[in-house]
């Protein structure tokens, strides 16, 4: 397993080297490999498809130049997600939409809203529940349950201690529990 991970790291590093040396196809490959995950993380943190697309675009434009200063000490994916998640958290903090959404959800309750363009209504409900969290907690939930990162990787990526990662995750669960309970019951009914 670790060989596979190392191989992937090496491949990514090769792509970075090719990009820096002027091979335009290499950047396209990096984009193809990671843009869905960057978009998905951004979507979970900012809460809107349009904003998530803008953020994804901004992240790739940012790294297009910054890859020249990539130090080949960490995995490209970790470096890329650090940029993406911090960018999305900053944007979400700027907008401070979560307060408004929390009020709306508390007022309306979580009901099916027709779902996302491709997803099930229940996906949309889970997504709306996540928006109740602060941007930092959304990032934790996204990295853990969407990207499947380990606690160590999350601590490294967010530049916080392991204890902070776990306490934030626990707090996220505590906050989401009453909201997710209703969704679980709906799923069992179906």
């Amino acid at each position, binding site marked *: 397993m670790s060989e596979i991970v190392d191989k992937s790291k090496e491949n990514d590093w090769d792509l970075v080297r090719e990009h820096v040396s002027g091979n335009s196809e290499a950047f*396209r490959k990096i984009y193809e490999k990671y843009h869905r995950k960057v978009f998905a993380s951004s*979507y979970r943190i900012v809460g809107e498809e349009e904003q998530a697309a803008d953020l994804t675009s901004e992240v790739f434009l940012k790294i297009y130049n910054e890859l020249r200063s990539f130090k080949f000490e960490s995995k490209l994916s970790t470096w890329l997600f650090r940029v993406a998640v911090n960018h999305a958290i900053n944007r979400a903090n700027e907008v401070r939409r979560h307060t408004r959404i929390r009020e709306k959800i508390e007022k309306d309750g979580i009901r099916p809203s027709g779902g996302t363009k491709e997803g*099930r209504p229940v*996906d949309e409900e889970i997504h709306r529940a996540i928006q109740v969290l602060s941007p930092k907690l959304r990032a934790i939930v996204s990295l853990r349950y969407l990207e499947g990162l380990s606690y160590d990787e999350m601590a490294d990526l967010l530049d916080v201690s392991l204890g902070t990662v*776990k306490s934030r*995750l626990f707090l996220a*669960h505590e906050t989401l*529990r009453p909201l997710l309970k209703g969704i679980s019951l709906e799923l069992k009914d179906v």
Partner: protein
Amino acid sequence: MNCEQFQESIFDSHTTESKAHLEVCSPCAALLTQVKDEAHLLSTAKTPEPPADLWDQIQNQIERKTTIPRFRVVSWISIAAALLVGVMGYLVGQNPTKVHTDKPLQLNVVEVSPEKSRSLVGFVPGYDQEDTQQALANAMVPFPYRRDR
């Protein structure tokens, strides 16, 4: 281990201490099941796909950043045209004997950009290099500050 300690380390519930606590504490066992269910729900929720044309948008922006904006090219072409007029006016007015009447002055602007502006001097064929340099300098300097030879 008490309940508070267990909850603090709920994401390390595979440790011997945690397992021992779970065997004797049903509320904590229920909480762990709940957390696992929530984790499953969160990890199976699908997110939408990014827009299909996102790469095109990014590529366009990269290209826009790495090439000269059109308005700047237009503006440099205007400057080049003004220089052409200036050079012709200077050569005819100041030193008509040096003008080659059989070979009219022609300024060919092949490519114009801030980096290549200096090569304009070389685009005035058939004329004395010093004169063209002076003419270009005069054309770029407002009249009251011009240093005529």
